């Protein structure tokens, strides 16, 4: 076998270079949003036992709800469950405008999704894991949060709402 150099048409070579540059530009834009503006994806937070997470008195999800941890700063512990009915606990939250809410969501049964409309909070909810993201609600209004992963017959009715008061 004799060695052959790869033949690349000049138009095609330029196209390949251009494609590579374009992808680098996109990757840069993504990095700026992630590391510069703090628009991040969920990180491992805590592992829990899905069999006891909703009942253990030491678990915040045995008494889920909204907690003000500092002025204007809230933690929302939410349990997403399919048994006995497809629902979030609690279904409704109310915070004043300007609040920063950190969501801690887990499931005692099957996989669920959690997406708050018109915000960047959108993540999977897995039994055994805690999903955490923070949202700052500046505008008053009602924000539905809906289940985005198939979780059984009632998947389509599983949702809740956050009311942001002025």
């Amino acid at each position: 076998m004799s060695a052959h150099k790869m033949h690349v048409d000049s138009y095609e070579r330029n196209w390949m270079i251009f494609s590579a540059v374009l992808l680098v530009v996109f990757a840069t834009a993504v990095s700026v949003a992630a590391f510069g503006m703090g628009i991040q994806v969920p990180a491992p937070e805590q592992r829990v036992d899905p069999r006891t997470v909703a009942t253990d008195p030491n678990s915040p999800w045995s008494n889920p709800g909204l907690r003000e941890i500092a002025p204007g700063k809230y933690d929302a512990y939410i349990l997403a469950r399919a048994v006995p009915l497809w629902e979030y606990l609690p279904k409704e939250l109310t915070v004043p405008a300007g609040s920063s809410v950190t969501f801690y969501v887990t499931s005692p049964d099957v996989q669920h999704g959690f997406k708050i409309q018109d915000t960047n909070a959108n993540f999977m909810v897995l039994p055994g894991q805690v999903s955490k993201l923070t949202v700052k609600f500046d505008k008053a209004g009602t924000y539905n949060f809906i289940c985005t992963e198939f979780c059984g017959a009632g998947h389509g009715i599983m949702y809740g709402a956050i009311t942001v008061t002025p």
Partner: protein
Amino acid sequence: MANKDKEDEEFRPTGTLAILAIFVVTLIAIWATIYMILVGRGGTL
């Protein structure tokens, strides 16, 4: 196998570049639209 036609040697894919240019413009427009939605909604940390 491949018989090198003179025609092939001179073939310049200009139309291809034109189509790809349209594609790239569309790609950037759509991608940037979604990116701006993301940025407009703010941080998650």
